[in-house]
């Protein structure tokens, strides 16, 4: 069959780096093609070449699309030919309605007047195609992330899409939202739409992909086809990282000491809607050397819980008690929390965790500048030593600690955030989605670090939407839904089914 898209020998260099080196890719009409690779492997660059962000002439190689040589000069160019990319960071305008967003830049108008009736009708139609039934005039900000992702797809459908590219579409989604999205992809495929999915999640790729291209360090490593090649997660992981991954979760000797952090009867009201309880009477604890997970769907209140404990960074009318090693502590500000021995690694490292235009060194010392200064004067020599130490011990891949953090890949950025919090000398670390959007290799390193921390007697709390991760890493798992704890499972009792059923049955009861 004639491929819809063929990219041949694509190379793209930036000053000092060769981002893509002779990458080839072939996508057949009507299939779902997966592109996998570690962060920084060159997937995003490849998609930018395809969509015309890097216009023809600024890269080497050829793109054949729909039977002809294509030279896209801009995104508009490629969109006009039906190539549409949905980026990982959603590009919806939160304060506009669904309908306005769907036809943004593509408005249904006559003589410059927007035809609202027609717009509404078409919106309903498109929403139905992606399985949504929300009213077209609803503001996008009122939708959850999962639904927003579907609206993005509807927006692409509104544009007469022939090749739909989804860049890590499920990175921010809960398990059930992810499933819905993958089902939608299969449904679109059954109607003949060609799709490319970029993802880290191998189980998802196995579920939807007809063919897979693995990219490593800017080159194509392998092209697999369902039915022809044996496709296993191990095989893909091996190709991605270039080595065997013995176990996805490194083993740890479990031993829990006395209780470190104890949060009791914690209740928080929503900051904007005080009548709403964001956290309802939650109690939990972490012991020395213990790794505790908090499972739940997106919006279950896990991040809100962590942030409200961490120096009242979320919510109002916070009630409850926090004890560290049995002694009550007041955590009114973030500095209080840090002083008490808490660290919170945020879920959103770009907007909450890092100062992107600052260097690695400056980011690492930010939460504990006192340790690299005396009487308010910075000791840059000491600071550089500290940063250099973490660069080595955390294996942050960078030429030096004076590199700007914004230029690092996701995994390395996450290591910088973790370094920052390790340097603050915590006893309990709360890690919110610690492996979101980072590649398999870096994930493994972070799991190793978590084990190391627990071996040192620190308490670790992991908030994660990836259940296998919680099951693989934690000693105990709390299950959260709608701002309340649904129950607690030990590692032995826990399974994905049990966690899901706890979430589902209880919320039905409520």
């Amino acid at each position, binding site marked *: 069959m004639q491929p819809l898209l063929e990219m041949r020998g694509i190379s793209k260099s930036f*000053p*000092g780096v060769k981002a893509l080196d002779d990458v080839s890719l072939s996508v057949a009409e009507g299939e779902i093609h997966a592109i996998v690779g570690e962060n920084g492997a060159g997937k995003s660059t490849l998609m930018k070449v395809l969509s015309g962000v890097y216009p023809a002439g600024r890269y080497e190689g050829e793109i054949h699309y729909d039977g002809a040589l294509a030279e896209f000069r801009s995104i508009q160019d490629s969109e006009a030919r039906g190539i549409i990319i949905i980026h990982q960071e959603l590009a919806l305008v939160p304060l506009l309605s669904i309908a306005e967003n769907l036809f943004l830049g593509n408005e249904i108008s006559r003589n410059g007047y927007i035809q609202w009736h027609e717009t509404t009708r078409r919106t309903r139609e498109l929403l139905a195609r992606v399985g949504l039934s929300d009213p077209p005039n609803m503001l996008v900000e009122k939708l959850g992330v999962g639904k927003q992702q579907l609206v993005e797809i509807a927006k692409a459908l509104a544009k007469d899409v022939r090749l739909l590219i989804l860049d890590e579409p499920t990175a921010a989604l809960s398990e059930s939202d992810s499933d819905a999205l993958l089902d939608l992809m299969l449904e679109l495929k059954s109607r003949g739409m060609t799709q490319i999915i970029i993802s880290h999640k191998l189980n998802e790729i196995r579920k939807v992909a007809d063919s897979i291209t693995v990219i490593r360090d800017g080159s194509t490593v392998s092209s697999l086809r369902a039915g022809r090649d044996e496709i296993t997660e191990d095989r893909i992981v091996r190709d991605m990282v270039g080595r065997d991954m013995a176990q996805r979760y490194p083993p740890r000797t479990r031993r829990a000491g006395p209780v470190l952090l104890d949060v009791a009867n914690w209740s928080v009201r929503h900051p904007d809607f005080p009548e709403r309880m964001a956290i309802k009477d939650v109690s939990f604890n972490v012991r020395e050397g213990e790794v505790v997970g908090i499972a739940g769907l997106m919006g279950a209140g896990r991040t809100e819980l962590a942030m409200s404990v*961490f*120096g009242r*960074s979320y919510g109002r009318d916070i009630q409850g008690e926090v004890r560290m090693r049995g002694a009550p502590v007041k955590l009114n*500000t*973030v*500095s209080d*929390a*840090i002083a008490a021995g808490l660290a*919170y690694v*945020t879920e959103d490292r770009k*907007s*909450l*965790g*890092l*100062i*992107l*235009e*600052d260097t690695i060194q*400056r980011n690492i010392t*930010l*939460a504990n*500048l*006192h340790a690299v*200064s005396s009487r*308010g*004067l*910075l000791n*840059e*020599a000491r600071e*550089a*030593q500290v940063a*250099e130490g973490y660069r080595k011990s955390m294996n942050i891949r960078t*030429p*030096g600690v*004076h590199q700007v953090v914004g230029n690092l890949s996701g995994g390395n950025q996450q290591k910088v955030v973790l370094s*920052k919090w390790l340097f*603050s000398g915590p006893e309990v670390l709360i890690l919110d989605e610690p492996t979101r959007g980072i590649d398999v290799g870096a994930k493994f390193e972070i799991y190793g670090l978590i084990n190391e921390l627990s071996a040192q007697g620190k308490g670790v709390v992991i908030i994660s939407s990836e259940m296998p991760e919680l099951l693989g890493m934690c000693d105990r798992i709390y299950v959260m839904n709608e701002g309340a704890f649904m129950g607690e499972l030990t590692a032995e009792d826990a399974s994905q089914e049990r966690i899901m059923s706890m979430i589902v049955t209880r919320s039905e009861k409520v």
Partner: protein
Amino acid sequence: MQQANAQAGTAQSMREYLVNHLREYGLLFALIAVMVFFQITTNGTLMRPVNITNLLLQNSYIVIMALGMLIVIVSGNIDLSVGSVMGFIGALAAVLIVSMGLPLMVAVVICLITGGLIGAAQGYWIAYWKIPSFIVTLAGMLVFRGLSLWLLQGQSVGPFPREFQVIATGFVADPFPAAWGQSLAVMFGERNVNILALLTGVVAAAVIVWMGINKRARNKTFGVVGEPFAFFVVRNIIVAAALVFITYKLSSFRGLPNVLLTMGILTIIYAFLTENTVIGRQIYAVGGNEKAAKLSGIKTERLTFLAFVNMGVLAAAAGLVFAARLNTATPKAGFALELDVIAAAFIGGASMSGGVGKIVGAVVGAFLMGVLNNGMSIMGIGIDYQQMIKGLVLLAAVIFDVYNKSKRV
């Protein structure tokens, strides 16, 4: 062969370094280019000792405020009220000193405290109530403009006593025996040489070079890839030569102006504060990413508040210098001056979105604008063209920034 490769490698890394730091070098070269240009077009008037002295006096209050403005902009804010605050403080000084006859020191202290309080009043709403600084200080600009008018009853008040004028127009006395200066003057073929001024320039140049070498050595021990050696040498020679040259010119006129000393000391203090202290680092963090800074335990509100208090004090200091220089307080003093100050910070490389910018950049930016003003005035270019050219320079500087950034990605 290998050597050729290595050489190609250094050339490559030098080019790369230049591209990454084009902004800093560009600013320095722009200033030099503009000075050379006007030196030629004004037939040497620009660099005459009397004009260099004038240039420093004329721009002193802009430079003083640019220091505070840079910090405000780095913290992610803007202050539109500084021109009005400066004028208001000048008016206050006039009322206190001329009309009420208060002792100078008392009046100066009251003025500086008032400036701090004004900054605090504005900073309070900006920091703790999260009201955009653009709006708060726009309001402040109107309020203090009005207050100056009210305070002066629409009249100009002056003149100030001699001791007050000295703040802006005085010169530091030369402690060295006059005979030494005389003999040096004969040697250089000048009418007069102020040894203190010359010595200050030489010492300052030496200190800058020495600190540069020190920092380079330190960077090397930590494996920081620094400036290529050739650049380092050239840059230091230019800066040191410029310093010595300017102080030599000054020394052949009346010596070191008091304001130059004030400006110099303040610049050093603020450069040190922003680059070497915890509080300085934290301000950059607040401007770079306020949420991340807050979640790292930084008291973001307090820092924003302090940035405005500091701005108020510096605007007050500038107001005193301005009033002393004009020897009178007028209701129109400082009108539209905030724009020059903000322009200086942006020309100097500060970023509108916060977190980026250097004190030295802002000072150089202020002098770049100052030299443009001065040179064009000497050439007799009309105020109409002057405004247009200044505007275009500001635009060009920022476009250069943005273009530079986009090319690097």
